[in-house]
């Protein structure tokens, strides 16, 4: 089993506080908490009715892990299993992440930029060990 | 075998209907208290009531580190008093305690660790406690297998060193006090759980136990993790919280480590005992617990940190892990002395540092019980400090743990 790691650009990101915003024009909405949402492709001004909206475009980076081995790679450092189409804020190795699984064998890993070098290095090792163990 | 035990240890008497002093808790501090009551305060009409078996709690679950290089005068005074007693204890108790003054290193990994270390060393110096500050270059001589490379996540920037610090064999210590107390006439009553404390007119007069009522002139609570539960029986509330503290030992290896190494920053406390096993402690588990059981991730972190410091340990194996229940005060200092209930005395809150204090704790507590007033060395550790705010805060700067 294999998997590949790449970085992707989700564009503008905004944290919206309050009720879940509508997914307009297929824009990505990830739940960070009961009243906290991460919306891709939007800005602070797009949510006049929200309790708060904060531009966090630069506060996350997004790694993408794809391939049949992807779940096994994540399982090396994360006890949460994310269903297809679902997302979860959790820990991967020693970094807080938001995991999103758009497809069966594709995961998005949103992480704070300052943690990205660490997480990349960890994932590279996990991929190595995946190759070695199968 | 070194540290072999004597031919006779103690009787197993049934409890008498009444004693001058009832000590609740047959751990290290309780047994020491009973011993010093009989030996120095002329009170031999003493019972030690132990719920399970003698010395089954923290006294034999800790990493046996002994040191006195604490920051604040109040702490340094009582721990140094303990260390002086340790230095004569094998003689006094006639028991091989495997007391080994191999020195205790406390590592600094950040610039603030360095400031705190120097602060503690200079405080120790002014208190007449042997303490040194060692630069990384000086560390290799003290601990050759320590990883002093700058090229690690948290390089070692220096360390405090107390040459007189060291370790002892924990059960020998407890058993030595027990045997000596028993020989002086103290009743060590095992399998005797205290279920109630009888308070009449604001005075503690007896304890209810699983083996009947035992009247007492004075009641002394020395039950570490269970102090809150016991105090509650007398309607008393204590500013302590009980947490699991995990430790582990490895298999036996030929000697590679002849000093004690502590790193509060990464939570590693390690020494190699005489038999050859590596004895290691971790940080406390975050949650309150009486389960004598901790979470595995704490052990994972502890060993990860240990290998950063000691690459040589990579193939060492964990033989046994366990946990004790430590009761921790908000300022990480103990509570010793009188209580609002007349005739009821409490000795608790030693947190992760109780073993090293055992002789001083027992001795000063015995004095306190006998005289009905706090011994000078424990006066600063009375309950009213939480009202005035005069805490003895051994967090942060003091390298508090273990």
């Amino acid at each position, binding site marked *: 089993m294999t998997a590949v790691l790449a970085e992707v650009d989700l564009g503008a990101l905004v*944290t919206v506080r309050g009720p879940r915003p509508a997914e307009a024009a297929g824009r990505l909405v990830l739940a960070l908490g009961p009243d906290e949402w991460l919306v891709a492709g939007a800005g602070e001004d797009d949510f006049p009715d929200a*309790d*708060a909206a*904060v531009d966090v*475009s*630069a506060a*996350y980076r997004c790694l993408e892990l794809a391939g049949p081995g992807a779940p096994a790679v994540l399982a*090396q450092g994360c006890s949460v299993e994310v269903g297809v189409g679902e997302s979860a804020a959790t820990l991967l190795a*020693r*970094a807080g992440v938001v995991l999103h699984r758009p497809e069966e064998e594709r995961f998005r890993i949103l992480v704070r*930029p*300052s*943690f990205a*070098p*660490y997480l990349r290095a*960890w994932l590279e*090792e996990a991929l190595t060990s995946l190759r070695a163990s199968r | *075998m070194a540290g072999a035990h004597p*031919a*006779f240890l103690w009787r197993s008497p049934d409890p008498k209907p009444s004693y001058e002093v009832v000590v609740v808790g047959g751990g290290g501090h309780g047994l020491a208290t009973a011993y010093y009551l009989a030996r120095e305060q002329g009170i031999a009409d003493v019972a030690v009531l132990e719920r*399970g*078996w003698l010395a*089954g709690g923290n006294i034999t679950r800790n990493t046996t580190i002994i040191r006195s290089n604490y920051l604040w*005068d109040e702490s340094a005074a009582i721990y140094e008093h303990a260390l002086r007693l340790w230095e004569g204890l094998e003689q006094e108790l006639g028991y091989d305690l495997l007391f080994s003054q191999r020195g205790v290193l406390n590592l600094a990994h950040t610039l*603030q660790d360095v*400031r705190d270390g*120097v*602060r503690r*060393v*200079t405080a120790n*110096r*002014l*208190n007449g406690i042997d303490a*040194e*500050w060692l630069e990384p270059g000086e560390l290799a001589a003290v601990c050759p297998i320590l990883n002093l490379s700058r090229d690690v*996540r948290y390089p070692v920037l220096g360390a405090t060193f107390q040459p007189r610090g060291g370790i002892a064999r924990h059960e020998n210590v407890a058993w030595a006090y027990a045997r000596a107390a028993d020989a002086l006439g103290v009743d060590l009553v*095992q399998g005797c759980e205290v279920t109630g404390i009888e308070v009449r007119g604001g005075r503690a007069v007896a304890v209810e136990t699983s083996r009947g009522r035992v009247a007492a002139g004075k009641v002394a609570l020395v039950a570490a993790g269970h102090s809150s539960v016991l105090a509650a029986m007398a309607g008393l509330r204590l500013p302590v919280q009980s947490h699991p503290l995990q430790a582990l030992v490895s*298999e*036996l*290896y030929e000697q590679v480590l002849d000093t004690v190494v502590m790193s509060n920053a990464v939570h590693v406390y390690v020494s190699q005992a005489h038999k050859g096993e590596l004895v290691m402690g971790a940080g406390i588990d975050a949650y309150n617990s009486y389960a004598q*059981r901790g979470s595995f991730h704490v052990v*994972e972190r502890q*060993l*990860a*940190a240990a*290998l*950063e410091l000691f690459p*040589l*340990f*990579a*193939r*060492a194996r*964990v033989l*046994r*892990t*366990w946990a004790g229940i430590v009761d921790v005060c908000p300022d990480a200092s103990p509570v010793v002395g009188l209580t609002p209930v007349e005739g009821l005395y409490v000795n608790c809150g030693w947190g992760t540092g109780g073993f090293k204090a055992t002789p001083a704790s027992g001795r000063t507590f015995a004095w306190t019980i006998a005289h009905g007033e706090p011994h000078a060395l424990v006066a600063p550790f009375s309950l009213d400090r939480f*009202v005035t*705010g005069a805490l003895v805060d051994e*967090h942060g*700067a003091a390298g508090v743990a273990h």
Partner: protein
Amino acid sequence: MRFTFAGAEYEGREGETLAAALVRNGVLGGFRSIYRGRPRGVYSAHEEEPNALVQVGPEPLVRATLVELEDGLVADPLAGKGRLVPAPRPRCDAAHARCDVLVVGGGRSGRAAAAAARGRVILVEQLGCAPLDGVQVLAHTTALGVYDGNYVVAAERGRRLWKIRALRIVLATGAIERPALFPGNDRPGVMLASAFEAYGRPAGATPVSGGFSPRVHLWSQAGGRLRWDDRIGAPVPAGELRGIECAGRLTGAGLPDAPPFALPDGDEDETFVDLERDATVADVRRAVEAGLRSVEHVKRYTSIGTGSDQGKTANVNAIRVAAELLGVHPGELGTTTFRPPYVPVSFALVAGRDRGELFDPVRVTPMHPWHVAHGAVFEDVGQWKRPRYYPRPGEEMDAAVLRECRAVCEAVGMQDVSTLGKIDVQGPDALELLNRLYTNALDSLEVGRCRYALMCRADGMVLDDGVVMRVGERRYLCTTTTGNAAAVLAWMEEWLQTEWPELRVRLTSVTEQWATAAVAGPDARELLAPLTEIPLDAERFPFMAIREGEVAGIPARVARVSFSGELAFEVSVDGRRGLELWEALAAAGDVTPYGTEAMHVLRAEKAYPIVGQDTDGTVTPFDLGLDWIVSRTKPDFVGKRSFARADTSRPDRKQLVALLPLDPRELVPEGAQLAETAELTPPVPMLGHVTSSYRSAALGRTFALALLAGGRGRVGDVLYAVPPRGDGVPVRVAEPVLYDPEGARRDGRPR
């Protein structure tokens, strides 16, 4: 294949264990016991082996019964003690798994339970194990422990650590044979009957059996009770545990009746209870005669069960012997506690991948590559790497820091302050929340202005400090210290969520949204002016004001705050453009990058405290001389009540002061305690300690900050700062602010 044992070569076979090969080669001895040096040989066939311990290269204390033979293998017998030798660290990893049913043990009953189970099923077996339809079989995987919440940790071939969450656990761990007790039961050739069979009835070997003891370890670890089963003469699982079942021989079912138990007739000192620990029936008798009644005491007195085999063949016999000697039923004695791991597990496996650079995340800012390229020496601040100083070729730290300080005082410098925590506070009640948490009164703070602010814990001790910026009618941006960013956000959230949920305000971490460069020094305006349209003169951009605009073509928020006492602007931009901003600033003129060390010096000259360095959790705002920042008008804020306590209101508390060494070249060590006299014969009363100590370019001398008892009343006194070694250093107590006390430099060069 060939292998070497104790220096002699033998022929081995594929798939054989070292123990099997030795026995087949007629080697029934070859080992020695740990204390008495008695000759010993292979005793069992599995993990319970007490005798056949070997060192295989760097691997200490391996059980010959568990070593899979490979060609050229070299093994040396060990007498109970291994050798730790330098060797490359084995690469280990971990795997989390979840299942409906976890079966431990791949024997008949284990496989049956697995086959019958519904849903996701995992089977772990410490030996080899055939595949099973619809079951994830983990062969050569040993369950080490059962933890809270049906969390099972298992080791696969010593290289992967499995962490398995199971809704249901079926324990089918079987039983271990125990020795019969007779004088000389440890002699080479004597082996458990089960091993005798496993090794094909080797010639010259003597099978013995004292019956079978179920492997109750995991059940007991999980908190399960035990009951003594007289028929098999061993404890078996009793009672119930939520989510855990026992199956097969573990329950005692199918085990043969135990042979009748009797103390040996003959030399008890030659009759071994624990072979690895060299403990005999005579030792148990000594323990009982010493007055011991608890099996735990007997264990410690004799050290039975403390060997690397954890007494797998010894513990039950020890109980039976002790019970016999005490004249009680074994069931009354109970057992010793079973503690994880079931078999020893290597440190490297438990530590897994948390090693080296991955031991703890290294956090870096967007400008990090530039710092590296320009030779910065870094300091660990929490998980962050921050430039401490930027030495030029051949330049020592002291020289570099003096140069960086001088640049900020005389020209212009810039520092990467992106690591400072930043919290976005939004909502109609934002001001109310901040007023309750900060010691300042913030009501008068206007939009577009900011203020230095302080937070205390409820006990009145300083928690953190930072700048509160009002960026909108109902929106604030609060900065925190680098190390406290997460803690302060959690602190604010806790009060908001649990204490004042009625407040309509939201908190969001924007620490990494913004990259921030501090531009400080009298030439700060000259450096920035060409890069921005924002008017920078003191009239239109006063101290503690905030402006929005472009800097180097990048949308930016500029704040006129200063942590150095010099004219300073903090420029914040979208983190993705932080490096671009930094490079533009570097290219804009003769600007000197400076690190945390220079910053520390500059702020110390102004007596700006650093939380965590000049404070230690026992320091109030008043102790720091920050009375001006503590509101007297607010009815309450977190910490206020504590200031009135007896000890907290003492006039002779330790207060922040400056110290000037009498010898202006002498640097006192940070952490040094302060004494009244040069005479250092203990005990010497301690008056306080040095919190910060530097060489100052501006003052042309050394100086320090200290917390000194009644300090503000002691200005002018001469005290002694005590280093770890040598004489005390005479220092004069001074007012804390040593440089530009009137704050003239704040606005830059007068024009």
